[in-house]
């Protein structure tokens, strides 16, 4: 009796739970903790603020200090009639004026990045229908790019798991055999041995999927490194540009900051807006399917069907598998290529800023070549 009551209670609990609880799997999401303020900002307000008001204040303080020193040197030069000192001081005053303009440009540009990115997003949305979340500030830009690539990386891991299960199923099917050995001597017939070919082919497709997953995960954390550490280059760049000996280094650091902190996430977002759009993905899938059907009709059907095992439709199974795997890899590949294109553009931008800001280390330095 007691056992029955216990069983009934468990059953009732189970029914109650099933009706009130819809189980959803919540996968680990590092993007939330990285950009929702849970991780404290590294370089003051700069890495969390979207308007960068603090930048102008700090920069003005630095420039004012340097201007005072230069003015003192100018006064000494005038007093003792040292022409070289007067000329040096004048040049430095002009350089600091240029720095002031540069800071206004950088601060204004970064403050306006939200508008630029929203503009890019609107432009992207006008071309393709995208399901990317809307951008309101710099943090949300980084968050959105992070979520997109992290989600895609998790999708690739799911593909890997399903690929592994498929290989397992194929290996079982391929091992089916008919034995005819009455006295320990005879024949074994394995009608599905050809499935090993598909198993090997499927195994080879796992390599690009692993590579795509790796690149996307690296991109997720690269964005975090840029978001939290690169503002340091802005501060140091402005500081170094105020002194003549370190002016070139300052320019180089500013070039690094502008290229990667401002342009890289914007480019990544713009490209992912296009590649994440349903129309683009449908287009890619239909293109692959069309090409595959041509292959199927011309090559596989005529060659493989007749030569290997016509009765088991080897060709159609093989070509269908190839189409399925190529589709999987192509969708991930589009996103990976987007990352590579953005990186190449940013390295080119570094050189352009090297020219602009007088940093010989970046000017025609082939930074990308060195990195590769």
């Amino acid at each position, binding site marked *: 009796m007691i056992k029955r009551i216990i069983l009934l209670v*468990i059953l009732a*609990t*189970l029914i*109650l*739970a099933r009706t*009130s*609880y819809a*189980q959803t*799997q*919540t*996968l*680990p999401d*590092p993007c939330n*903790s*990285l950009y929702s303020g849970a*991780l*404290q900002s*590294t*370089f003051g307000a700069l890495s969390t603020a979207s308007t960068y008001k603090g930048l102008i204040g700090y920069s003005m303080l630095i420039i004012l200090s340097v201007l005072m020193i230069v003015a003192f040197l100018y006064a000494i030069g005038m007093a003792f009639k040292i022409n070289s000192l007067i000329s040096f001081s004048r040049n430095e005053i002009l350089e600091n004026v240029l720095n002031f303009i540069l800071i206004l440009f950088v601060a204004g540009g970064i403050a306006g990045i939200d508008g630029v990115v929203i503009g890019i997003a609107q432009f992207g949305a006008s071309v393709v229908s995208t399901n990317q979340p809307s951008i309101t500030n710099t943090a949300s830009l980084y968050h959105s790019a992070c979520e997109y690539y992290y989600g895609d990386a998790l999708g690739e*891991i799911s593909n890997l*798991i399903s690929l*592994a*299960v498929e290989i*397992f199923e194929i*290996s079982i*099917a391929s*091992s*089916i*055999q*008919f*034995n*005819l*050995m*009455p006295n320990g001597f*005879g024949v074994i017939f394995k009608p599905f041995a050809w499935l090993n070919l598909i198993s090997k082919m499927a*195994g080879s497709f*796992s390599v690009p999927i*692993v590579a795509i*997953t*790796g690149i996307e*995960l690296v991109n997720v*954390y*690269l964005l*975090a490194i840029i978001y*939290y*550490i690169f503002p340091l280059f802005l501060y140091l760049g402005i500081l170094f540009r105020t002194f*003549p*000996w*370190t002016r*070139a*280094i300052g320019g*180089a650091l500013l070039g690094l900051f502008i290229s990667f902190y401002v342009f890289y996430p914007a480019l990544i977002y713009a490209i992912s807006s296009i590649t994440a759009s349903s129309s683009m993905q449908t287009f890619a899938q239909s293109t692959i399917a069309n090409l595959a059907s041509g292959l199927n009709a011309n090559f596989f059907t005529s060659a493989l069907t007749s030569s290997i095992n016509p009765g088991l439709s080897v060709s159609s199974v093989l070509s269908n598998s190839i189409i399925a795997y190529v589709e999987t890899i192509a969708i991930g590949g589009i996103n990976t290529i987007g990352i590579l294109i953005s990186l190449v553009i940013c390295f080119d931008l570094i050189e352009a800023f090297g020219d602009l800001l007088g*940093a*010989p*280390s*970046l000017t025609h*330095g082939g*930074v990308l070549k*060195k*990195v590769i």
Partner: protein
Amino acid sequence: MQECVNSINNFLTAPYTAWFPITLIAATLIIVILAVVYLLAPLVGRDDIKRNISIMIYQTLFSIVLILGFGMFATWLCSFNVEGPLQNLNLILVNIPPGVHIPYGGNLYETALYDLYWFTNYGALANTNFFLSLIYYLLNIGPQLSLEINFIPGVQTLGFSAKGSFSLSNVLGSYIGYINDAISWLFIVNDLQFIIISAAPIIFAIFVSMGLIARIFGFSRSFGGSLIALGVGIGFVYPLMVSITYGFINVAYSQLIANMLPNVAANTFGASIQSALVSLLTGKALPNAILSSIYDIINIAGFTATASLILPLLNFIVVNTFVLDFSQAFGERLDFMSLLTSII
């Protein structure tokens, strides 16, 4: 860790600080010799030598100013509490297990070493290595599933049979193998950084001192500038970048790992007692636990790969930029990365 810090401390208190006074004495001797030559030059009727010597004396005086400046900078570098400001910027991990000593009031080299040591031995790289090895062993000891069907039970030599063996290592082993290979390479990159950080104080002391002496003479002025830039780049900029970047990575990783277990638990049992009951009774708890663990470990592996690959690259690019531009300001232009690629 403590041994490394002690050895650096011992080194900093003796030969490191001795280099700048030695350089100062050398520069003073050079001035004396130059002064003697300056006085003797008119006696042999060589006014051109006198003119050149006077320029060299000015250069030596300027070098003495630079030696004093760099000497003060070196003293500040060894005594300044870098750990304090970095902690204010949340770039030092303070929640550490017992047995590990955080360098309270540590200088730049101690802080950089601590950050790198933490990352390698307790942080992302160590944990990824541990988790992957664990998975690898688990996959290889089981579970093993073997399926065999015979048309006539017990007789394998006649009739129809199907046999398939399944072990997780067959399916997932190759993926884990890729990640294991990558981790081995990342350890090598990390060890390389340990070597550079350990050598940073001596590189700073010797290169800058030699560079300051070399700058006195006209024929070796550009070489001296390059040595100074290389010394400051590797001896100051590199440890600074390591302490900032790896400090951030350690702090970010501590949060990631803290979220790992709650994530797995939430995926396995849900957020309520009811959901936990349903998960257990319907058998979804086990596959959900396995799947979420795999996702979490791959996530940590991705984080480690980024930190181990991108950060050394970023640090080297910044050092290269600094050396290139600073060497041009002090003398000859020196391309640090080209130097490395030429050697490699």
